[in-house]
């Protein structure tokens, strides 16, 4: 059985005046039908560029996919034309972004924005369109959906706006949703509501999700699988619980250890020294080597290829025996 989305050795570079930024440098992962993958990493690690590569929404000029395949339902999206991609975006793969203040257009009503998907992909008009919009708003549990149609984004709260963004993403019944930090801008109690909502919708519709986040709490709550990204590459990927229980890559271990806990008094946090590297000037060898507490001679010379640590648990680290 083949995966819904299978990204193979994807490389997306950004060509700037000062040189090449290797934003995504050989990333592979897959998502099955109805599954949720968490892509974890810090800002500037290339996770957003990875999402944009899948939908081929790269910054122009300068960004391009240099190598690799993005197999979606068996077809390679890298080879698709812009026209073909437009039929996939929104209809088969859609996106929820972090900031609903900017991801919704302030000049249009909710009805207009949610309706756009149906107007484009299903060529609906008039009554039928309006009913579809209400249906979509009800799916994301917006109270009194009928009365919200004429509202503008600024008249709604952050949580409600993010639901509208969800309605737009889910409207055309896509098989994959890419959620890029969807709850980062929300308050704690609203975040809990929203995550619950996404889980319910997933159970109902069987949509697969790719959750891009820096928040390990969100991952622990939402995902089946996790891929940890550092400086343009995936350093570790595994089943979610397996990764939390037995992290193998020093970066993952550090990331888990440096978080303060809700349920324990701590004297001092373990911290990862240094700063994330500049993607335009990566160190030779393993990208994490300069910050790694267990750095060896070989780490400074050669990037470790991916190896299997245990069932379905892949790590790119010299410490792990092949």
């Amino acid at each position, binding site marked *: 059985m083949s995966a819904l989305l299978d990204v193979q050795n994807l490389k997306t570079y950004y060509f700037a005046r000062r040189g090449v930024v290797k934003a995504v440098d050989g990333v592979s992962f897959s998502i099955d039908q109805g599954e949720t993958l968490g892509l974890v990493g810090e800002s500037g690690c290339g996770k957003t560029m990875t999402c944009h590569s899948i939908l081929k929404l790269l910054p122009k000029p300068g960004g391009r996919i240099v190598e690799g395949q993005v197999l979606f339902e068996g077809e390679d999206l890298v080879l698709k034309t812009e026209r073909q991609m437009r039929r996939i975006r929104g209809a088969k793969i859609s996106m929820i972004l972090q900031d609903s203040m900017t991801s919704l257009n302030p000049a249009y009503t909710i009805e207009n924005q949610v309706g756009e998907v149906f107007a484009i992909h299903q060529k609906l008009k008039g009554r039928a369109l309006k009913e579809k919009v209400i249906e979509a708003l009800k799916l994301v549990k917006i109270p009194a959906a009928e009365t919200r149609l004429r509202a503008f984004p600024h008249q709604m*709260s*952050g949580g409600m706006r993010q639901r509208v963004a969800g309605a737009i993403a889910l409207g055309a019944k896509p098989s994959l949703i890419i959620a890029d930090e969807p709850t980062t801008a929300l308050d704690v109690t609203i975040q*809990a*509501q929203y995550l619950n909502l996404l889980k319910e919708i997933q159970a109902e519709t069987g949509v697969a999700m790719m959750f891009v986040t820096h*928040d390990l*709490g969100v991952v622990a709550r939402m995902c089946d699988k996790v891929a940890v990204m550092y400086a343009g590459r995936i350093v570790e990927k595994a089943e979610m619980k397996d990764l939390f229980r037995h992290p193998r890559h020093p970066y993952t271990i550090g990331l888990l250890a*440096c978080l303060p806990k809700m349920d324990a008094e701590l004297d001092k946090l373990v*911290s990862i020294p240094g700063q994330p590297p500049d993607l335009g000037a990566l160190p030779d060898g393993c990208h994490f080597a300069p*910050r790694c507490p267990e750095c060896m001679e070989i780490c400074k010379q050669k990037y470790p290829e991916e190896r299997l640590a245990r069932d379905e648990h892949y790590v790119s680290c010299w410490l792990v025996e092949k």
Partner: protein
Amino acid sequence: MNDTILEVKGITKHYPIVAGVVRTKPIGWVKAVDGIEFSIRKGETFGLVGESGCGKTTTTKLILLLEEATEGAIMFRGTDVFSIGRSGLREYRRAVQAVFQDPFSSLNPRMKVRDIIEEPLVTLHGFSKKQREERIAECLDQVGLPPGSGSNYPHEFSGGQRQRIAVARALAPNPDLIILDEPVSALDVSVRAQIMNLLKELQDRFGLTYLMIAHDLAVVRYMSTRIGVMYLGKLVETGRSEDLFNDPLHPYTEALLSAALPTHPDTSRNEIVLTGEVPSPVDPPSGCRFHPRCPKAMDICSHIEPVLARMEPDREVVCHLW
């Protein structure tokens, strides 16, 4: 009570909502902060938590005298800061410093790091050029920046390093109290622990007092000795950090704690997901402001505002249940 450094007494801030084209007049008031009281003792970290719009940032602006309070008083070592003279104000400006959330907007891009750190010393007068130079070098060293970084501009540093510069600047005039407004939330996960540890270490070394604002409860737990929980411009509960986390008294605190996602999938928790959204501070609900969302609401809650109940020496809660 002579170890109290700062006492906030019934402080209130109402912003007018103006309407009209030619002659503007207020048509309502945003009750951003509505009569809150707390005190901060020497050497402790007082954490203020709450969701966006609860008034925690306004509270710090009032303490920093960046906004004028509508009502109430702030006592600094026993004197009211709203009515201290010029020299008193100068002393207050020395004694109270701040570190803000966004290290990109909090450092003037056109000033060298040295000048940024020097600024509070210049306005204080009474320091010779040489003394200031020495103090700058000292502060850079204390926050772990290389001695030469003074002659660089902020944009040459990463987010974490910039936050170190901001801390160095706050340290420069030997303050008694530092206000930390979301000091780590804009930083990368792997860098947060560094900054939190730095802040704790400086506190131990110099006997600093912190007032910290954060929305990340785990961060607050790690940093604070005492915590105040705000909801819609009111303080609903205060208590010592571990008491409050282990045994929350106010239903809102309880819900807030349960909504925060544990960073490990194996952590068990009982989840209370609040319904609805935070009401607008323009027209807050009658009685207890939390009653429309409160899972334990009683009849009395909707029409009588609860008064503060002192549970233990260090424990206060504003709720009809107690």
